[in-house]
């Protein structure tokens, strides 16, 4: 086994963990600035070591497993919640050279593996033998499943115009124009559905602290709880990079500025998406549970289907087909 195959994923793991610590800090800083306060600045210069301190704290914390909890399930749940979050990164092409697999059905793999997390959440909710956790798990499972469908539907527009599920080909196809413009409806639905997949405001029902039901990870303490948080932020990394690849043209430079390397463009677009996630979290109130479900089925899904129809129709129109038949 040549070393690159082994070292690559480990290196990616460290990059992702590094990103997660910086993302948590960056989120608290951004929300702090929006709320006209400096954000964490106590631990380390400008608060850089804040997340490290948090993780260390969680490590030291006592690892309580409720007595009547279903022990094997309870221990397994965080792992099942985290593994797909990381496994999904295998298929994301960061630049032409920097990618792990030329998977023919990249998107399908991504969307399929990412829905395994729901099982982990249900296990966590059920195993902790706590009525709040159970209600929270039910809610978040229902939410993630009902938003999975608009998420998938919104991507079909791109697949139609590119004609392949391979993420690398999708990025290649966006040399001239990024898919955010022709597929704007798809982008809107995708972005909103990804917000809900990540359980972020305005769809952060499960761990709505002011709500009665306090999330599926209410019984988890110490490092198991950290695992759930970790999987949430790795998903932010995965979802943001997928949005960049699908809609913002991966490593393609805008307006032909190709002297700056692709990775820099990728990171810039990626950070733009991550910033907008935090920005929305600081501004939006929370949607009610029944409104959330209704929104998914009655608004997002029809819009996504309409977007597919639009793409299919516009492919035939003579002038516009260069946008839609790549």
């Amino acid at each position, binding site marked *: 086994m040549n070393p690159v195959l082994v070292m690559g994923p480990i290196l990616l793991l460290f990059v992702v963990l590094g990103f997660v610590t910086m993302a948590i800090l960056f989120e608290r800083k*951004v929300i*702090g*600035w*929006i*709320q*006209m*306060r*400096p954000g964490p600045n106590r631990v380390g210069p400008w608060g850089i070591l804040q997340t490290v301190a948090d993780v260390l704290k969680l490590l030291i914390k006592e690892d309580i497993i409720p007595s009547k909890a279903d022990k094997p399930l309870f221990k397994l749940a965080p792992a099942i919640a985290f593994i797909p979050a990381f496994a999904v990164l295998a298929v994301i092409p960061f630049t032409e050279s920097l990618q792990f697999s030329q998977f023919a059905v990249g998107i399908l793999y991504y969307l399929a593996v990412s829905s395994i997390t729901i099982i982990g959440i249900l296990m966590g909710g059920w195993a902790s033998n706590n009525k709040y956790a159970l209600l929270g798990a039910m809610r978040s499972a229902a939410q993630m499943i009902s938003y999975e469908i608009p998420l998938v539907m919104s991507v079909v527009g791109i697949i139609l115009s590119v004609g392949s599920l391979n993420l690398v080909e999708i990025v290649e196809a966006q040399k001239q124009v990024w898919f955010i413009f022709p597929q704007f409806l798809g982008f809107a639905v995708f972005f909103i559905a990804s917000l809900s997949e990540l359980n972020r405001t305005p769809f952060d029902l499960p761990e709505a602290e002011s709500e009665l039901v306090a999330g599926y990870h209410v019984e988890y303490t110490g490092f198991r709880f950290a695992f759930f948080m970790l999987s949430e932020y790795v998903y932010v990394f995965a979802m943001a990079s997928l949005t960049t690849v699908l809609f913002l043209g991966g490593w393609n430079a805008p307006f032909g500025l190709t002297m700056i390397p692709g990775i820099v463009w990728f990171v810039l677009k990626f950070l733009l998406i991550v910033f907008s996630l935090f*920005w*929305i979290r*600081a*501004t*939006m109130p929370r949607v009610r549970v029944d409104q959330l479900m209704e929104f998914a089925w009655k608004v997002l899904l029809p819009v996504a289907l309409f977007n597919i129809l639009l793409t299919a129709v516009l492919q035939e129109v003579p002038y516009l087909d260069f946008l839609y038949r790549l």
Partner: protein
Amino acid sequence: MRGLVKGLGITLKNMTKPSVTHRYPDVPLPMPDRFRGIQYFDPDLCIVCNQCVRICPTDCITLTGKKHPDPEKKGKVIDTYDINFEICILCDLCTEVCPTEAIVMTNNYELAVYSRDDLFKNMEWLHQNDENVRKENNLNKPNLAPGGNKK
């Protein structure tokens, strides 16, 4: 959708504004002169008239007076003066009724202590607590509040 976008615009605009928070532990927070912090007590002004004990809503002041040491002066001199800071609510009624301004509020608000017995402030402690004593007290206040202070 328009309302959501407008809201986002406002939060972005606020992001650029400087932070309005105090850096309290690093930068000391100055309090206005009238701030009601822990009291300062001056034993020689006190004429042991018990007004403060009577007005205190939570009865946390206990004092004992003794005969004036040299015989020809009459009246009493304060012997012990304790304020029980477990139940003192810093309501400033005692300084209001004190005729001779023996007890006056200061602007110190760091009152946390490590053990409960430190909360029983005796006369010495109250006398040493003399930084940033409040300047505008009863006697030099134009409109006098009701209560015991004579002109």
